[in-house]
């Protein structure tokens, strides 16, 4: 039975989410057209067609990324499938190739597998066989991507391309991040909880000259106040009660690499002084030690607080703030980069399916709408948890609205409605004019830019709607 699921791609370099492209090389017009119809209309792929192997190779030579999967017939004029496969391999070793062969020519399929084809199916084409073969190919592709991602994480080589949204909602921020990676400049990352500050810091590290050296992340808010100093700078055996052995501390663990100080705003004032000294003198003194140690560590810090306000309130040292805040980078919350929601969701689905040994899942239209409507106050972390729960609750390969039954009714109702934030990024309240303008924009978006309906929904005259919109434009 065909599931008629839409196939989407999520490249390792996170190109915009789009249906995967299948390139068909088949000389017989009728069979090529039928195959294109099946792949396009029924399976939801984007389809490119070539009349023989030579044409297919030319397309790949011209643009190596023109297809995600290639289907090659074996018997074709000009250049047969086996010859084409050998040439395709010279351009793209990773491109999955599926071979079409007649039942009488299975030995050719064996030859194709030796040349690097991923699978073969025999003619006459059976839609279910083709669907199964493509599912297997997609499964292998997902696993390959995940292994490559884990490998990069393990080797400290996470880059900006590992961040979903690097070429969409985060493109500007990532441009700053890349600049930061080129230098040793101290970076202070600001952003709401769950936006991915640590991953961003890892990417700066992974694209800097310190890549491959240690990346040590530490949550300053999670260290008990009396252990902050020894955790960061280490201690000698017996330096304090409970110091049963010597510890080198996080700074020396990060030697040559980068230390990521998350929730820096939570660092107690006393520890702030010691951190400042370590940064100024580039050396640390473990608790109870009689000597200090030179350190070669890059500092990246992060906070979800407005640190300047903390400075004013005397809860954070101004001198430390200036030393850390040389390059401030603000990561926008997910609700301000809606284009990233679906790619992130698909990425999470792929990862969780692999982790839970589930077949590839897709998102239903209702779930997609829900994802786009929700304001995600917990950002990417909340989205990850949501996808995880829907996968756990779901029973089908397409994730359905009923799988969200874990949401309490009231919460679901609240979350389904549009949300307007009352505070700006810096924590200050937005003005009435700004809020009014955002409300009007939201309602207009919900009514697909139909002003009459939007004005009706807000209980105001169309002329008032236009006037207020014009006033808002002038003000901004």
């Amino acid at each position: 039975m065909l599931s008629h699921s839409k196939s989407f791609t999520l490249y390792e370099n996170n190109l915009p989410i789009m249906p995967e492209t299948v390139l068909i090389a088949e000389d017989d017009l009728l069979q090529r057209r039928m195959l294109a119809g099946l792949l396009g209309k029924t399976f939801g792929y984007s389809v490119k067609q070539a009349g023989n192997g030579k044409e297919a190779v030319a397309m790949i030579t011209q643009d190596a990324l023109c297809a995600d999967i290639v289907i090659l017939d074996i018997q074709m004029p000009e250049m047969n499938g086996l010859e084409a496969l050998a040439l395709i391999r010279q351009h793209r070793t990773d491109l999955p190739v599926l071979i079409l062969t007649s039942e009488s020519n299975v030995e050719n399929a064996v030859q194709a597998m030796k040349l690097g084809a991923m699978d073969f199916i025999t003619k006459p084409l059976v839609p279910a066989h083709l669907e199964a073969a493509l599912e297997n190919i997609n499964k292998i592709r997902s696993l390959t991507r995940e292994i490559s991602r884990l490998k990069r994480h393990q080797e400290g080589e996470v880059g900006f391309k590992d961040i979903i949204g690097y070429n969409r909602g985060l493109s500007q921020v990532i441009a700053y991040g890349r600049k930061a990676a080129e230098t040793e400049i101290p970076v202070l990352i600001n952003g709401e909880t769950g936006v991915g500050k640590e991953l961003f810091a890892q990417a700066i590290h992974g694209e800097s000259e310190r890549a491959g050296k240690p990346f040590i992340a530490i949550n300053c808010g999670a260290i008990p106040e009396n252990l902050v100093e020894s955790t960061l700078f280490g201690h000698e055996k017996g330096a304090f009660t409970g110091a049963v052995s010597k510890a080198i501390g996080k700074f020396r663990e990060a030697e040559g690499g980068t230390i990521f100080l998350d929730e820096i705003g939570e660092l107690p004032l006393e520890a702030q002084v010691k951190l400042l000294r370590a940064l100024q003198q580039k050396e640390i003194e473990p608790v109870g030690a009689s000597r200090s140690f030179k350190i070669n560590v890059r500092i990246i810090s992060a906070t979800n607080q407005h640190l300047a306000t903390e400075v004013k309130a005397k809860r954070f040292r101004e001198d430390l703030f200036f030393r850390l805040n040389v390059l401030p980078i603000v990561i926008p919350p997910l609700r301000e980069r809606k284009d990233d929601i679906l790619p992130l969701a698909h990425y999470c689905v792929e990862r969780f399916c692999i982790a839970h040994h589930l077949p590839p899942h897709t998102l239903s239209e209702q779930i997609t709408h829900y994802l786009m409507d929700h304001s995600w106050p917990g950002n990417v972390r909340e989205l990850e948890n949501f996808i995880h729960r829907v996968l756990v609750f779901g029973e089908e390969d397409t994730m359905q609205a009923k799988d969200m039954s874990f949401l309490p009714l009231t919460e679901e109702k609240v979350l389904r409605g549009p949300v307007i934030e009352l505070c700006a990024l810096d924590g200050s309240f937005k003005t009435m004019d700004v809020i009014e303008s955002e409300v009007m924009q939201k309602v207009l978006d919900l009514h697909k830019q139909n002003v009459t309906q939007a004005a009706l929904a807000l209980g105001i005259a169309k002329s008032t709607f236009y006037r207020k919109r014009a006033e808002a434009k002038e003000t901004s």
Partner: protein
Amino acid sequence: MTTPVDKQHLRAFTHGDPKEEQELITLFIEQIRENLLALKEHIASQHQEKWCSIAHRFAGSAGTFGARQLHVLCRKAEHYGAHEEAKKQQILTLLDQEVNQVITFLGQS
């Protein structure tokens, strides 16, 4: 009773789009007429390779389209490449009959 063409199989390729189905039917009828003619033209023993290649392609499109009996006959024809003309003529007669049945069926349905 089996029909000359499995229309349910065909519909899986068109996602139930009647316009697309009709276009495929027109293309298929055009192709089977051309293929049959080409086989007749290459019945002589010196065209053995060409005969096999036409029969192979004919079999492929018939099978993919869902014309099962026609597919079986084309496969047989493909293996008759080295046979004498009389044998090929026999299979051509059967193919001729089956092609007519397919065209009639597609015209009626």
